């Protein structure tokens, strides 16, 4: 596996411009001769399909929802960053770039992050033009708020539904292209495998979720925009259907998987309430603008929060990280919450929770201001917990939320399989070992609206390809494999439901590969996961037919892939003998418990190559070179 990042030459601020100027383009009249498959219609997929359709390429968009508008980007709450500096508070492209590299604990590729910071502004402009109703000041100009890991106010938002509004913007652009005939939409169609012909990605195999029909599709390039894999933990903030299948199948076909152990545990989620829990609900990080996080100073203090006097409260984030306080980055805040609970100072049932208290800001600003800023989030909290956060402090606890790891891509967003591009959360590129708040939306839209139109065009213009058809042998073989897997899942006719097996996997992963990791725990987990996987294929019970609408069957296939991915995540976490960002190895910490990074040995991206079932994956490394940013110990104190 050759890892050539193809970073343009020249000074950092000129790299992207240089690529735009030098890249080979496709003549408008020739674009309709090229076909492109886009899998997934979240922010990255919808914006990519709309942009490419508008340019005149023939696009086929595949998604497993009944409508493209339901992709999980819709659930993003807090906002989207852009270095507009509308606040006159010192923001710039360089500062956003620097914050993102530092927030990622110096494990992201500098050139990609710089491009992201450059493109951030155009995203806001495009969103406004497509009708996204961002929050406004009384002047009529765009409003901003602050997010974790930044000292400037650069986050644009639409109440607590920024992801929804941005996705509906991209979805409506996609709808316009469907109407124009440049994009063909395939709803309720799930990609189950990738087809590689002569070393290039040339198509996919799908299953029609209504009829069960397995089918092949050929194209000149394939774009995976299929999101992250936090659901490997079973309980996460991701939507129930989010899964790893598309990128995992691509990995098995030869795409390198980068930093799979880099996962983000979000600090502000509603704590678990019982064994039946199906998912965890995020409370936007924006709440930490006005909420103060605390636990009682004394372990085992089970008084109700209003009975705990001020001097017996520990506002631990403000104490430990005075300059960032409650807006310390996500990895740091999550770990701190875990420490508090491990010390027996957690609150609520089971002691796995900390308070997020709005009483000070309510006194200072008035309840109407708090209601204006967070009304819908407060309502959501009350609906779920039955408690009124205007009166009683919220209880929150960390939950798996985002995966920085993903398929390795070069500067062009192309994976190690030529013709296979990976956009948005599905790739590994921009967030290093920890993602800052309000930057996932930014990355998805930058990749789809503004990066891929150039880099895909360059690929197509530079590549001589022969025509392929879904009828040829390479497609038939993959189809047969897909059908065989479906049959095997149905044929097991075992005793345990998919969810029963899946919950077990999630528990093992959260314990061993969650907020803190040890060599011992990871080694044991790898063994356990192998055992669980074997048991799964023997003893899973999937009812119903292959040729039918069958949600259990859909889930069974996705969970099968999670078992394999889980093992690779643990292997990666075990291999990375340092702590950085969301990856915290207990063996590698400072005297004060902060992460201890090892730039001597681990300033690289770890890229795994599939070597076949039952064989250890092959490790490759892309060294990270920092020219614009000085490697420093990350401090938010």
């Amino acid at each position: 596996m050759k890892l050539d990042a193809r970073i343009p030459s020249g000074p950092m601020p000129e790299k992207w411009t240089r690529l735009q100027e030098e890249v080979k383009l496709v003549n408008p009249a020739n674009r309709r001769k090229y076909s492109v498959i886009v899998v997934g219609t979240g922010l990255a997929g919808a914006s990519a399909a709309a942009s490419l359709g508008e340019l005149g390429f023939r696009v086929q968009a595949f998604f497993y929802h009944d409508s493209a508008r339901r992709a999980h980007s819709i659930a993003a709450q807090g906002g989207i960053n852009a270095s507009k500096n509308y606040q006159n508070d010192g923001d710039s492209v360089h500062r956003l770039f620097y914050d993102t590299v530092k927030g990622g604990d110096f494990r992201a590729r500098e050139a990609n992050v710089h491009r992201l910071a450059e493109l951030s502004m155009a995203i806001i402009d495009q969103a406004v033009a497509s009708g996204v109703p961002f929050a406004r000041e009384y002047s009529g100009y765009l409003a901003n708020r602050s997010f974790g890991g930044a000292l400037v106010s650069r986050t644009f938002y639409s109440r607590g539904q920024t992801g929804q509004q941005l996705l509906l913007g991209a979805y409506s652009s996609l709808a316009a292209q469907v109407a124009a005939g440049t994009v063909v939409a395939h709803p309720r169609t799930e990609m189950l495998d990738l087809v590689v012909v002569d070393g290039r990605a040339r198509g996919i195999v799908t299953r029609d979720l209504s009829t069960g029909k397995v089918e092949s599709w050929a194209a000149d390039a394939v774009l995976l925009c299929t999101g992250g894999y936090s659901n490997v933990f079973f309980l996460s903030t991701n939507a129930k259907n989010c899964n790893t299948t598309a990128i995992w199948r691509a990995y098995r076909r030869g795409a390198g998987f980068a930093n799979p152990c880099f996962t983000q545990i979000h600090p502000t989620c509603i704590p678990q309430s019982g064994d039946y829990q199906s998912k965890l609900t995020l409370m936007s990080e924006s709440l930490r603008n006005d909420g103060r996080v605390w636990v009682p100073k004394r372990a085992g203090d089970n008084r109700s929060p209003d009975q705990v006097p001020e001097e017996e409260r520990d506002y631990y984030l403000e104490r430990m990280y005075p300059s960032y306080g409650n807006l310390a980055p996500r990895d740091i805040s999550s770990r701190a919450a875990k420490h508090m609970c491990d010390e027996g100072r957690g609150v609520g049932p089971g002691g796995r929770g900390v308070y997020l208290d709005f009483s000070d800001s309510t006194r200072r600003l008035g309840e109407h201001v708090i209601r204006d800023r967070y009304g819908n989030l407060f309502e959501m909290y009350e609906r779920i917990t039955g408690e009124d956060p205007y009166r009683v402090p919220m209880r929150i606890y960390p939950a798996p939320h985002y995966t920085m790891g993903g398929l390795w891509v070069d500067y062009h967003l192309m994976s190690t399989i030529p013709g296979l591009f990976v956009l948005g959360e599905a790739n590994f590129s921009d967030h290093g070992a920890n993602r800052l708040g309000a930057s996932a939306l930014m990355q998805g839209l930058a990749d789809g609206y503004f990066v891929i139109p150039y880099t895909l065009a360059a690929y197509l213009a530079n590549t001589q390809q022969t025509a392929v058809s879904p009828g040829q042998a390479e497609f038939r073989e993959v189809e047969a494999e897909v059908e065989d897997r479906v049959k095997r899942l149905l044929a097991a006719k075992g005793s345990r439901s998919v969810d029963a097996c899946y919950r077990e996997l999630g528990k093992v992963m959260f314990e061993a590969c969650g907020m803190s990791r040890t060599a011992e725990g990871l080694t044991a987990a790898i063994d356990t996961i192998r055992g669980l996987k074997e048991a799964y294929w023997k003893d899973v019970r999937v009812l119903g037919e292959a040729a039918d609408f069958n949600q259990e069957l859909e889930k069974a296939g996705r969970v099968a892939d999670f078992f394999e991915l889980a093992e690779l995540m643990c292997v990666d976490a075990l291999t990375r003998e340092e702590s950085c960002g969301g990856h915290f190895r207990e063996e590698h910490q400072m005297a004060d418990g902060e992460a201890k990074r090892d730039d001597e040995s681990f300033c690289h991206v770890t890229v795994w190559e599939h070597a076949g079932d039952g064989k250890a994956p092959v490790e490759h490394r892309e060294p990270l070179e920092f020219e614009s940013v000085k490697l420093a110990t990350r401090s938010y104190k």
Partner: protein
Amino acid sequence: MRLTLHVWRQKGPQDPGRFATYELEDVSTHMSFLEMLDVLNQDLIGRGEEPIAFEHDCREGICGSCGMVIDGVPHGTQPGTTCCQLHMRHFSDGDEVVVEPWRARAFPVVKDLVVNRSAFDRIVQAGGFISARIGSAPDGNAIPIPKATAERAMDFAECIGCGACVAACPNSAAMLFVAAKIAHLGLLPQGQPERLERAKAMVEQMEREAFGACTNYRACEAACPKEISIQAIAMMNRDFRKAMLSGTGHIGGKRKR
């Protein structure tokens, strides 16, 4: 608590369907309605019966996937709440609960509680967008938008496309869904150039689908989990009439031949 559930089971679009009754013991008040169905489904799988198909995804009330009529009310009786956010503390021990799919000709049943809502997508494709060419946008602050206007547009933009409005309407009309999009885009300065054409195209597509007409029951507004006001419908009607009267669609200042 104990519950008796009457759930609509339908194998596919051609199957006539029927109610099946299930007894549940030990339902926790902290569960969401969908988690209660999860527990029932685990039980069904254990007994070798096919689980109940129902659509769901984010379980945070924003993706619009879930939707079922609970005791005759779309998403259940809690105002402003999708069924994924409806919690069992609103039910009492011994309750009998009836669960059905959206019932509308324009939303044919796929299986059990799952329906096909692709008519909504076709309506958006007919004109529910601003055709701003990607890359051509001016600075986001170039056109100030009064805060009140932006907030009002956002009130309508919050629609999650779940279809509860159609399920609630005695005529199975899609007016609230269509109008919310027309109002959202029609309020913003960016939406003005295509405003009347958009209203016309979306309404015409709505009429081509199997939705009924509006007779002002306001059941849609009552059922909407995002509490979107039927003011949107008034705005839509106004724009649609303007479009018809002004002959929108005939572009050009020259005499028609």
